[in-house]
């Protein structure tokens, strides 16, 4: 990582850390709800990062990452609900469970390429809500009703409210995970992952254990997304099977494509983006209905769908890549 981009990252982290402290100063701008929204953006960014590790850096497609998100969320929820495990301890537990599930799914995925892998993961995404409702698991998962949880409590008597603490907790997890991902990608293993993406045959010939790397990457990717799922279970304090359908996976995909495939920064942008669109769709609909007078319900997915296609045409590298190219052009023009 270049020194200048390191400075940028530290600056952004500093701003993020200071954000809740501004709450007494600007109570209207930094409301509890907004902080909660930012927390969900952080969770989304982690989930998209998980998908990006697999698709962006290892070249394996997944349209079914919602499944791993669900496994993470349910692992956390069941641990909290049945075994009274504290919420922070569910994060590593979810990571381990999701790593194992992802690794196992990565084994058949080894034999599949391109469209076929997309197909298998798409099928997985479609089947997840039903699997969660399976009768034998009902005792654990609560069936259709799902599980109602408690919000994380503020520890050590810190002078924070629940939303502020949740925000800091998510931020901490995100920093650790992004730091880990950046280091991993910068290592020998990371280069091997990317070599498999770019030149599978050459990587194999060079002595990289492609099967091992692909399955382990699948596991790590699932673990990242699963951690995001566990965080979301704590944040929303509720899990139910029907919130983990195919459209959750589509949201991760939009985060990946909009942010930028194969870009760490892009994962953050992508996460922020899809939460924003998801949340503003309702007010947009009201705007269309009341101000434009059209009897038309704009769903976030219309925006997502149009954007998915538009971005493939206009900015194949996503927002992060597009900005970077524009920046380079500007600098090139000046020099």
């Amino acid at each position, binding site marked *: 990582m270049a020194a200048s981009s390191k400075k940028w990252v530290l600056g952004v982290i500093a701003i993020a850390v200071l954000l809740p402290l501004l709450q007494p100063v600007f109570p209207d701008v930094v409301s509890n709800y907004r902080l909660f929204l930012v927390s969900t953006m952080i969770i989304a960014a982690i989930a998209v990062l998980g998908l990006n590790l697999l698709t962006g850096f290892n070249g394996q497609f997944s349209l079914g990452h919602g499944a791993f998100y669900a496994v993470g969320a349910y692992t956390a929820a069941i641990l909290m609900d049945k075994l009274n495990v504290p919420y922070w301890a569910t994060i590593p537990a979810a990571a381990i469970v999701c790593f194992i599930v992802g690794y196992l799914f990565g084994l058949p995925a080894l034999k*599949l390429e391109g*469209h076929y892998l997309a197909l298998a993961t798409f099928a997985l995404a479609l*089947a997840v809500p039903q699997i969660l409702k399976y009768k034998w698991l009902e005792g654990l998962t609560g069936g259709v009703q799902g599980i109602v949880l408690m919000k994380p409590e503020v520890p050590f008597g810190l002078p924070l409210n629940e939303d502020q603490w949740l925000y800091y907790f998510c931020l901490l997890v995100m920093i650790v995970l992004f730091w880990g991902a950046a280091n991993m990608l910068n290592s020998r293993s990371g280069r091997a992952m990317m070599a498999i993406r770019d030149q599978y045959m050459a990587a194999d010939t060079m002595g990289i254990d492609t099967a091992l790397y692909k399955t382990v990457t699948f596991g790590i990717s699932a673990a990242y997304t699963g951690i995001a799922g566990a965080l979301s279970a704590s944040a929303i304090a509720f899990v139910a099977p029907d919130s983990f359908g195919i459209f959750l996976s589509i949201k991760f995909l939009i985060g990946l494509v909009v942010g930028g495939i194969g870009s760490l920064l892009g994962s953050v942008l992508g996460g922020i983006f899809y939460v924003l669109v998801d949340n503003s769709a309702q007010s947009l609909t009201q705007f269309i209905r009341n101000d434009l007078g059209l009897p038309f*319900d704009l769903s976030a*997915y219309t925006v997502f*769908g149009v954007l998915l296609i538009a971005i*493939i045409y206009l900015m194949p590298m996503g927002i992060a890549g597009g900005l970077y190219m524009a920046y380079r052009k500007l600098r090139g023009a000046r020099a």
Partner: protein
Amino acid sequence: MEQLLQQFASGLANGAIYACVALALVMIYVSTDHINFAQGEMAMFSAYISWQLMDWGMSFWIAFVLTVLISFAMGVLIERLILRPLHNAPVLSIIVVFIGLLAIFNSMAGAFWSYLIKEFPSPFPKADFGIAGVIGPHQLGVVLVTLIVLGLLFVFFRYTPLGLAMRAAAQNPQMARLVGVRVDWMLALGWGLAASVGAVAGIMVAHIVYLEPNMMGGILLYAFASALVGGISNPAGAVAGGFIVGILENMVAYAGNQIEKATGVYIIGNGEKLTVALIIVIFVLTVRPAGLFGRVVVKRV
């Protein structure tokens, strides 16, 4: 025994629908090597169009024919406008575009016609149709309509010059172009036909699962399973796969039901239909990717 026959017959009816959607998938796959993830939502959208036409007062079969024609135009337009420019794009871009189409069709149907479940009429007369106790009138009708569609397609591809040109364009685009086939338009026509076949499936299934924007999710998964079982590069195989998977689906549920009755242990039932399809998809993909009737593709490295 009668119950088993009933299950078998309703498996045939479901299988007919899977066969239609699977056939649509295969038609696009054979000509372009793409798996159309939006096929189910396109069929759902077509079903809504025909509902709208009937709501405006048309009779079922007129709406049916019009919908098939509109869907054909829709398929051609999608190919020409959206997919044509991405002819040489990487696989990921194509998949993303299909997912985008899926999201658009799904949300637009919700926006135009709301997410409330609608009833969809059946065109088949209640009395004197079907075999009492074995197969209902709508189920029998679905199987018949599917067989007619398949017959027409077979005749079209086997005996008409245009069908021959389309087959040539799919099999060997360069050579086809050399002998004067307009390959680009053949691909667009393939898309149009696929959308039409999907529309037939959508209209036929809407009476069974009721009309709502998410109605095709499970059916698309089963269609994928069917296409894979039959071999995704083989149209006749996809049809056979559709019937096989349809019957298998009902037989699995029936067996689960019998086991529960005999032993009181619940293993599998109607609630696990999608899981069964998922298992079929992954099993076929890993064990025999060419399916039962597909051609094994040998790749030179």
